[in-house]
């Protein structure tokens, strides 16, 4: 593996994410709007003292879903459709290094998201609890899980189908994963929803950043997705 090629490709992947409007919409605009809107306007009751204490961890989870799953799968899916993945496979960069560059770019964009969203949340009066270390671990585990799901979609389906499915999953996860409202409000359905990687991620993020006991179940579900999704993706991924 050439480090020079990996570095150049990673920078190019970051640049392509940050310069295209439709990709910025899902990675920055929607999480920021969600954070500001829901934290400021009492639309949904959150059960926390300050609304932002609930929505800040929520959008930090949403940031991972939007970048590692939605943005990664759609861009990779279209690049596969355009023959770019195939073509780069015949260069010294190589197809596996290309996928590594994509994951590194996801991590870099997430870092920017965390800084931006964290700053906005702080501006809205958010004081994170000291357990930020756990939150970082959850974000990394979530990145692995959602990148695996993203690659699985992109590497097996037509680009247009990946686009539709990734956006559909995004909306479903946004709705029932403890992002827009506490998952307990789902009643009996909450146990099923908690099997989603998105719900597991927010299950860990909310207590980590809000002060409270982090449920073991959340870690287990998140870790299971982080192991299974990349393995299945690696087995099923097609470059052309």
């Amino acid at each position, binding site marked *: 593996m050439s480090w*020079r*090629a990996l570095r150049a490709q990673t920078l*190019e992947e970051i640049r392509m994410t940050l310069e*295209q409007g439709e990709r910025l919409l899902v990675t920055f605009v929607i999480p920021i709007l969600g954070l500001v809107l829901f934290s400021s306007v009492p639309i949904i009751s959150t059960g926390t003292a300050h609304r932002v204490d609930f929505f800040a961890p929520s959008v930090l989870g949403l940031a991972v879903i939007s970048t590692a799953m939605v943005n990664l799968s759609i861009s990779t899916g279209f690049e596969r459709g*355009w*023959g770019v993945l195939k*073509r780069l496979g*015949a*260069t*010294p960069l190589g197809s596996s290094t290309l996928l590594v560059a994509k994951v590194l770019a996801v991590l870099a964009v997430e870092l920017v998201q965390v800084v931006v969203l964290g700053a906005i949340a702080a501006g809205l009066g958010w004081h994170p609890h000291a357990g930020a270390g756990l939150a970082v671990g959850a974000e990394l585990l979530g990145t692995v899980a959602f990148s695996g799901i993203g690659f699985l979609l992109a590497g097996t389906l037509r680009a247009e189908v990946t686009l539709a499915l990734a956006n559909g999953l995004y909306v479903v996860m946004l709705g029932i994963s403890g992002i827009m409202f506490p998952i307990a409000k789902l009643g009996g359905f909450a146990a099923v929803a908690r099997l989603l990687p998105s719900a597991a991620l927010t299950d860990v993020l909310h207590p980590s950043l809000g002060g409270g006991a982090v449920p073991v179940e959340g870690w287990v579900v998140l870790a299971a997705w982080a192991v299974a999704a990349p393995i299945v993706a690696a087995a099923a991924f097609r470059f052309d």
Partner: protein
Amino acid sequence: MPAIEVEALEVSFGSVTAVDGVTFSGEAGEVLALIGPNGAGKTTTVETLEGYRRPTRGTVRVLGLDPVADHHALVPSIGVMLQQGGTYPVMSPERAIRLFASYYDDPRDPDELLDLAGLREVAKRPAKRLSGGERQRLSLALALVGRPRVAFLDEPTAGVDPAGRIVVREIVAALRDGGACVLLTTHELAEAERLADRVVIVDRGRVVAAGRPAELVTTGEEIRFAAPTGIDVVALGTALGASVVEVGPGEYQVAVAATPAAVAALTAWLAAEDLPLADLRAGRQSLEDAFLRLTSRDAHHEPEPPR
């Protein structure tokens, strides 16, 4: 060591045999054209050499290496132009060439490549806003970035206007003069004749002829005639002292110079056998004649292999 070696290559996709026993080789400093109708197996053959597909049977070697097993060792030395796609629509030619240059240890100068491919004026325009011909030339430029010793160009002139074709021809000639082996595919005979030192004509997965374009076109060394199908070509061949082949139903080719004596011997034999003679031709053919003769068929074309 030949730059490219294809030995008894067979590639099947399920029950469809796309390549069925193809053998040829290419040397450094040589331009080789694979020509044939759509579905003949050209792209499948090239993609096997590029390492995208494994042979079902037979072997392929590029610079002595196995394109799949020795992929990492080989890729720095090859340049690839896919039949379609392979470029980022959002990326301008300049940005794409610079990105590709970062993949190689000793890349060519991106500015020089922009000029060479005639892309200077559109250097900063996203690829999605380039014309078809400009995109083809970008794809060609990207195949040159790593100073390839073997270049695989799949349909390099498809959709390229006449001015662009001259650019492509000059680039191919420069690659050859620099000592590279160039394998290109085309279904346009005129392009093959202009671009290639040698052509390999493939049809339905098999090589039907190979040689310098001049050899394939101008044999005067043959007589062609039409007669009822199924005549005894062995007996006729013995009588004429030359091989006779039924190249199509009722269409025959005699490998002998079209001298008056040879023509007389042929007509005498047919007369003795009481066979009607429908058509008799001798002398020069165009490459198109040769191609149509070699690839004509009543059967439908094989479907394109799944991509």
